[in-house]
């Protein structure tokens, strides 16, 4: 293939709507496409998803390729990979973008392989340099950043959640909707999903929370996390944790923030008994203000903080909680 043009976003849907990550990626796609003088395309796959095409156009797409078939009702590698591949061959983009989500992590590498190219995963930043896509991603547990370009077309990247700004939706935007049919043999789907259980922490979703109280192994116990929950509830926020705290059994895996947990972007993150290992801090790339309470004045977490208190958390959080209660009541 030659004369590649276009920034194609593989859209995701959740509960009958366009997923937030897709709107973010479309924002990035629009900015990149404008620099290149190329259009923004979207690939919309699923069952009963065609009505969502207009929303993708409002969010920045010029052309939406729709593959609406029952076999695509749920994400399955062996159904989605050939379908997205067909769209990419038809659209012939110079760049393909996906979200770094369960789908993106699975689809990205396999699609790149089928298209004879490579993919940079979990990118924090995308830019154009010399007409090429410059992809920046974190590595070494968040201790370092790596910058990549790709020698082959299309250039592919998955994009970290909450790292890109979506456009303000414009319902008056015009675009083209192209229906694509793909022949997928159900017998070719090799994996069978036999069960699924959601495990979400109660209350506000971590990914949406404006205030998060995070606990590390230093919190020391389930009871300790109870206190943090009380504080989070008071501030109408959510409770987060580190992998170490989860592995120690102090909290549910659903609360884990970090490289292998959730990525969050609260206005305020209060880190309690957290050393600030880069793998945890990697999940806080979107946090606007970080405050930490830690016994160790040299703790890595303080390098990321606006405010810090060097102390055992048990001496600080109870009076902090009382003062917050007082301030909110007054």
């Amino acid at each position: 293939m030659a004369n590649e043009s276009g920034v194609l976003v593989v859209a995701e849907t959740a509960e009958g709507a366009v997923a937030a990550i897709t709107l973010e990626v479309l924002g990035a796609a629009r900015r990149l496409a404008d620099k290149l003088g190329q259009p923004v395309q979207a690939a919309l796959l699923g069952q009963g998803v065609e009505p969502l095409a207009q929303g993708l156009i409002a969010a920045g797409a010029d052309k939406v390729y729709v593959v609406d078939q029952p076999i695509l009702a749920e994400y399955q590698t062996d159904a989605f990979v050939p379908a997205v591949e067909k769209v990419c061959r038809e659209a012939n983009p110079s760049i393909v973008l996906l979200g770094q989500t369960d789908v993106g992590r699975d689809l990205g590498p396999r699609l790149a392989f089928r298209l004879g190219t490579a993919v940079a995963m979990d990118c924090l930043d995308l830019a154009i340099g010399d007409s090429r896509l410059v992809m920046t991603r974190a590595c070494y547990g968040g201790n370092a950043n790596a910058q990549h370009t790709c020698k082959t077309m299309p250039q592919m990247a998955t994009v970290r959640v909450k790292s890109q700004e979506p456009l303000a939706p414009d319902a008056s935007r015009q675009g083209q909707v192209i229906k694509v049919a793909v022949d997928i043999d159900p017998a070719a789907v090799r994996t069978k999903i036999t069960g699924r259980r959601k495990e979400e922490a109660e209350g506000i979703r971590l990914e949406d929370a404006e205030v998060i109280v995070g606990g590390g192994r230093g919190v020391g116990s389930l009871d300790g996390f109870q206190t943090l929950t009380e504080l989070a509830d008071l501030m109408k926020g959510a409770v987060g944790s580190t992998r170490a705290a989860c592995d120690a059994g102090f909290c549910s895996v659903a609360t884990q923030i970090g490289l292998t947990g959730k990525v969050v972007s609260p206005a305020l993150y209060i880190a309690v008994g957290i050393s600030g290992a880069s793998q945890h801090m990697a999940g806080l790339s979107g946090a606007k203000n970080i405050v930490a309470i830690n016994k160790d004045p040299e703790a890595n977490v303080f390098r990321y903080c606006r405010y810090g208190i060097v102390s055992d958390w048990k001496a600080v959080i109870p009076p902090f909680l009382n003062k917050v209660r007082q301030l909110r009541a007054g």
Partner: protein
Amino acid sequence: MLHMICCVKQVPDPETPASQFKVDEAAKKVLPAPGIDPVADEYAILGVEAALRIREALGEAKITILTLGPEAARDSVKKALAMGADEGVQLTDKAFEDGDSFATARALAAAIKKMEPFDIVFCGRQAPDWDVGVTPSVIAELLGLPCVTRACEVKVSDGTLTVERVLMDGFETVEVRLPAVVTISNELGEPRYPQLREIMAAARKPVAAWSAADLGLDPSQVGAAGSVLSLDRLYVPVQEAQCEFIEGETMEEAAEKLATKLREAKLI
């Protein structure tokens, strides 16, 4: 007898304190922290653990450890052999070095093919150096196999794999026919720690070394030469936050000051 191949990688210790983590920007490489030895990728070691648990359930199975890396990576192979694996294969050709995930997968897939017949390929969900998590999917593509990622439990029965895997908001159970590639996440649990006797026995287990030629691969297909994703820069991002430490006559006073400051900043 079931044959399981576990891909293991040796990486700089992820527990290296951030203050000791340094990059040589000109060479685009991480400088080894003095006194901190590299370790076996913890997720890959859990892959070995998953294989050992399956062997225990079935009564018997063959477990081979596969690694691509410099000669020093033999330590990671030895650790896996001490845990209970039977033999190892090392890909130490210079041609394999500095590849992107796709070039590395090409070498690993060729080695795995050379070890046929096999039933399961275990990998870690992502290696704690580059944190990419692409290589296992590409190995699966090259070998025409399904790949189930982020497993926290793996069971085998009558040629079918039942995997419980971790999603961003919960868990999922997946069934797939063998052969398959499976990647393991930390939720699998704790790996077994070898006893001294097992460590010594591991020294007698065979470890083969294969080159690109042994795999029928041209050097241009693997390593840096076979890569399309170029690493243009590697650097430590500068942390710009200036932390204001809040103090008081008592911790209570400090805590109250903090609450007041956050209230003033309209953050609570």
